[in-house]
Structure formats: structure tokens, C-alpha cells
């Protein structure tokens, strides 16, 4: 109970922005719907929901890394590497005569292996090697995207099994894209980890004050390493889902996702100093960015302007967070 109170004290800080997040989301939806009624069409809403699902999954991983006080720059490259890996594995296994669920499960598991390796590499170098997370993940990003480009030789991998595309790519349950259920499962699992289990609290403790966490007997290295592995695996999952959606293994998939995942996390109030972050806010923040992006597309704003708008939104969000933490400093 005491630890709960402790963390509540910490998380209460940058919520000035986060409390506004549901309001911002509602305002964005209402304004877009008023400007362009087509926003409310079922097909469009499903589109927004699908994009928000991709963003939530990858940003949830980014959040875990940021909670332990790091960054994961390599998520975009892991998406590309997983896309190439999964496509190669699926085509290879299909050549062996495998089909159906077996092919799907085996292919996806094989595709996740490179992601797991990148995550372990990041985690060990940061936790045991004590090298700056920024340098480590920027290095593995370069390596992973180079390998992905090398394996494809610059052209996408086609000929994926139709079953894979139909189920994971275009599959729907009760009219809702399957991706949404994957995202919901990931978010629920992380919510359980964060709010209902002791281990989840330890992540926050490690990020909030690593030295204190170690002295209370938490194996800080394990938790730091685990955060990077979770992030890489979730990026891998995003890679598989995107590959199924696009219909081919692409080495250029996910190029913008690194920036977007950090944007989502920052807007969700995840602290850059570590120790603070809630998966519920990641969902709201992903929805907000997806609605914003959809609104700009509906208003026929050139996609080149989108990155500018995202950059400005991120600046406003971090600025608000910096103000929040300064206010906390003056209270203490």
C-alpha cells in the first residue's frame, strides 16, 4: 500500500497534459466531424481505429523502455526486419508444404526471432554494458535496417500465403478489423502488468530511481533488459501485422514509426526522465494522433505537412511536461 501511495505521488505530476488528453481527443473528433461529415462513416472510423491499433502496440513498447529511463530508437528498424523475416519464413515454410494455422504460427514465431535478438542485444548492452540507450539503439537500428535491406536486395518479398493475408491482414470479427483485437490484448496485458502485478511496479521503481530500486533488492538489470525485449517484441508484432496488411515483406516498412512511437509516448505523458507512464494514456494518445492524421487527410492537406504538424504537437507536449516537472520541483 505504501508503494502504491509513493507511485501515485510521482505519477500525479505531468498529468496536467494527460488529464486534457480525453478532452483533446473528443474535441478533435467533434471538430473533424463538423468540418467533414465523411469522418463519421463506418469505413473511415474503422480506418482510424486500425491505425491507432498499430500505433498503440508499438508505442506501448516504447513506453516500457521510457519508463526504465531509456529510448528505443530501433523500433522502426525492427518492424522492417520482422517484416522481411516473417515474409521469408512464410514463403520458405509454405514451400515445405505447410499450410493453415500451423504455417501461420510457425512463420510468425520465426519472424519474431530477429526482433527478440535485437531486443536482447539492446537490453544487455544497456543494462549490463551500461552503454547509453540512445547510442545502443541507434546502433542496432542502423544494423537492423541494413540487414533488412540486404536480405531483400531492395525489392519486396511477394508470394505470401493467402491464408496469412486473409486472417491477419483483412480479417474482421463482428465488423471490426482483427488488428484492433491484437492491440486490445496487448494493452490489457500491459495494463494487468502495470496495475495488478508487483513486477510492473518494479519497472516504474527502476526508472524512478535505479539506485534506490537496487538497494531495496530489485534486480534492476533484469527489468531494464526485459523492457527492451518487450519493446522489440511489440515492434515485431507490429511488423507482422503491417506485413499482412501491406501484403509483402518490405525493408522500408515502419520508417516513420520510431518518431511516431516517441511522439505518442510523449503526448501520453510518459516522462523522459523515467518512472512514469500508463498504457491507458498510450491508447488515448494513439487515437488522438490517428484522428489528427485522418483529419488532415480528409481536409486534403498534403502528407508532407503531416510531419511538420506532428513535430509541433510533440514540442507542445514536451513543453507542457517540462513545465509540469518544474512546478513539481518548486513544490518539493
Amino acid at each position: 500500500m505504501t508503494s502504491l501511495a509513493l507511485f501515485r505521488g510521482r505519477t500525479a505530476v505531468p498529468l496536467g497534459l494527460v488529464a486534457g488528453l480525453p478532452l483533446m481527443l473528443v474535441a478533435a473528433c467533434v471538430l473533424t466531424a463538423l468540418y467533414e461529415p465523411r469522418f463519421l462513416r463506418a469505413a473511415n472510423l474503422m480506418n482510424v481505429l486500425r491505425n491507432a491499433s498499430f500505433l498503440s502496440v508499438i508505442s506501448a513498447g516504447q513506453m516500457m523502455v521510457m519508463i526504465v529511463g531509456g529510448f528505443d530508437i530501433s523500433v522502426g528498424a525492427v518492424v522492417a526486419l520482422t517484416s522481411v523475416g516473417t515474409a521469408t519464413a512464410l514463403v520458405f515454410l509454405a514451400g515445405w508444404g505447410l499450410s493453415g494455422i500451423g504455417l501461420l504460427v510457425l512463420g510468425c514465431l520465426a519472424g519474431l526471432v530477429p526482433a527478440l535478438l535485437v531486443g536482447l542485444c539492446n537490453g544487455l548492452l544497456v543494462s549490463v554494458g551500461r552503454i547509453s540507450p540512445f547510442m545502443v539503439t541507434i546502433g542496432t537500428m542502423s544494423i537492423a535496417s541494413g540487414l533488412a535491406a540486404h536480405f531483400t536486395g531492395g525489392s519486396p518479398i511477394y508470394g505470401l500465403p493467402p491464408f496469412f493475408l486473409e486472417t491477419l491482414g483483412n480479417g474482421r470479427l463482428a465488423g471490426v478489423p482483427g488488428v484492433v483485437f491484437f492491440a486490445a490484448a496487448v494493452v490489457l496485458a500491459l495494463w494487468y502488468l502495470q496495475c495488478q502485478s508487483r513486477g510492473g511496479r518494479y519497472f516504474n521503481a527502476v526508472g524512478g530511481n535505479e539506485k534506490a530500486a537496487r538497494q531495496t533488492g530489485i534486480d534492476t538489470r533484469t527489468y531494464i533488459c526485459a523492457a527492451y525485449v518487450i519493446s522489440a517484441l511489440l515492434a515485431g508484432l507490429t511488423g507482422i501485422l503491417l506485413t499482412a496488411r501491406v501484403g509483402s515483406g518490405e525493408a522500408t516498412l515502419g520508417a516513420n514509426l520510431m518518431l511516431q512511437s516517441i511522439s505518442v509516448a510523449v503526448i501520453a505523458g510518459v516522462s523522459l526522465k523515467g518512472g512514469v507512464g500508463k498504457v491507458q494514456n498510450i491508447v488515448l494518445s494513439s487515437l488522438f494522433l490517428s484522428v489528427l492524421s485522418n483529419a488532415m487527410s480528409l481536409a486534403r492537406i498534403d502528407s508532407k505537412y503531416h510531419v511538420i504538424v506532428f513535430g509541433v504537437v510533440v514540442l507542445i507536449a514536451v513543453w507542457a511536461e517540462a513545465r509540469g516537472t518544474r512546478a513539481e520541483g518548486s513544490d518539493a
Partner: protein
Amino acid sequence: MPKSLEHTPIRQRDALLQLALPVITLGMFVGFGLVEPAMLSAANVANVLKQGALFFFLAAAQLVALITRGFDLSVGACVSLVSVVASMAMTTVTVAAGPIAGVAAGIATGLLVGAVIGAINGALVAYGKINPFVATLATMSIFGGLSTTISGGFPIFDLPRTFTFAFNEAWWLFLPAPVTMAVLVGMALHFVLSSTAPGRVLYLLGDSPAAAHAAGLRVRLHLCLAYVASGLLAALGGLLMTAQIGSGEPNLGTNLVLGSIAAAVVGGASLRGGKGTVLAPALGSLLVIGLSVGMNLLQINGQLQPVVIGAILILGAAFDLLRARTR
């Protein structure tokens, strides 16, 4: 004057570690030369020097930010925007008032753009108290987006011949123009960093912001100026690269950010701030460019080169850690 300011960063380091990088760089050139003699031909050495000089400006821009315990991820976007805006100014003024005025206008606008980008980064980091990583990540997105929107995504052709000749093909003082520029700017930067008060303040700032504040220094102003210097250096690099390519390119700097950090850190700048001289970007960029040119000569797949750069980055950071521990 506080005592810590009297030690030059060079003296603090182990002499052995000082020599390691030049030896590795030289060894790499000799190694490539043994396998492929063309590596050491006069034309190739001039080429490596020229590419290295262009890269030096970005690595130096990164160094200034790293000294203050910051980052500048927007150097690449700065190069792109400078390339586009300077080319537009140059072509417009050349039509109206001749090539000399055009080139002058282009360079002036290019440097102005660099200074403004640097000032915005500096204001966000120093006065807005925003984490430099996220601040420059956001400005990278914004200025990168601006350079593609302003140009419509297309290169800007028809630069005056005077510009490409004077800043790329000509030889100044027995060296290719970009190399001479890099040497001159490098010397000036070294003087500012090691022998003037604002330069020394940057090292103290990176070492301990609290100490700098307690010493009564204007921390925010100096931090902001460091990012302006970084923007200006990146703008110079952008102008010279534009002269080399011969057109204003909206994606000129997109892939240079990683390499610039790699070069500066491998050269001896520290992520924990307060360390690194001009030698860091100079040697670091020679190493990175030498490796890339060498791999091209050996016909190693271009797509594998990022893999090598990534490995160098991690090794450089590990080496940096080792240096900090042995001291």
C-alpha cells in the same frame, strides 16, 4: 576563474588512448590499401579528404551539442533546408543581379537559415528546458518537412556555375576548396572552444551545469549559443554539399545524422558532456568516410554499410565508457 577551467580537456586524457584513434584510422587506410591499391591513389585520397571535409562540418556541429551534454538530431534536416532555401535564393538573385550577387545572397540566406534553426533548438533546450533529444527530434521532423514542402519535393537546378566551381572544383591554398574550408573552420572552432571564455564555458556546462550556474555564468545563453553554432556549422556543410551535388536537394541530409554522431563519438566526444576537441570530428569523419569509401572499392554491398556504421557506433560508445572508467 574556477580551477576546472584551467585544465584543457586534452591533458585529462590518457596519452595511449589519445593515440589509439589516429593509429586505427591509419591502419584502416593501409589495410584497405594492401587489399586494393587504388585506395591509396592520389585521386582516391583527394576524394576521401573531400568527402571527409564535408562530413566534418556535420560531425563538428554534433560535437558542439555533445560538449554541452546535448544532441542535435536536426543537423540533417538543417542541411536539407539550407540546401533548398540557399539554392532558391541563389537562382532567383542570379537571374536578377548576376552570379556573384546570387552566390553571395545564397550563402547569406543559407547561414541565416542555419542560425535560425540553431536559435530555435537552443531556445527550446535552454529556455524551454526541453530534453535536447526530443526537442531536436521534433525540429528534425518540422524542418525536414519544411524542406520538402518548400521545394515541392523536387531538386532545385540551375545553380550558378560560379558557385559549384568556387566551392567544389577549385583548389584553395593547394587543397580542394571543401578541405581548405574545413581546415580553416576547424582551426577557428578549436580557437573558440579552447581559448575563449564562451568556448570554455561550454565544457564546464557539459561537465556540471550546477557548477556553471554556481560560478555565475549565464548558462542558458551559452547553451543557446552552442546550438546556434551547431546550426551554423551544419549550414556550412549544407552549402558545400549543395555545391558538390550541383543542385538544391530536399533530402540531402536525411541519412547523415547517424554518421555525424558516430564520427563525433568515435573521435572522442563524450555523451556525458564536457569532453572532446576539434580532433574528434576530424579523425572520426576520416574514419567513417574512409571505411565507406574502402568498402565501396572492395565492392561490399552498399546495404551492408549501415551495419558497419551501427557496429562502430556501439563500439565507439563502449570505448567512451572504457575511457571514462580508466581515468
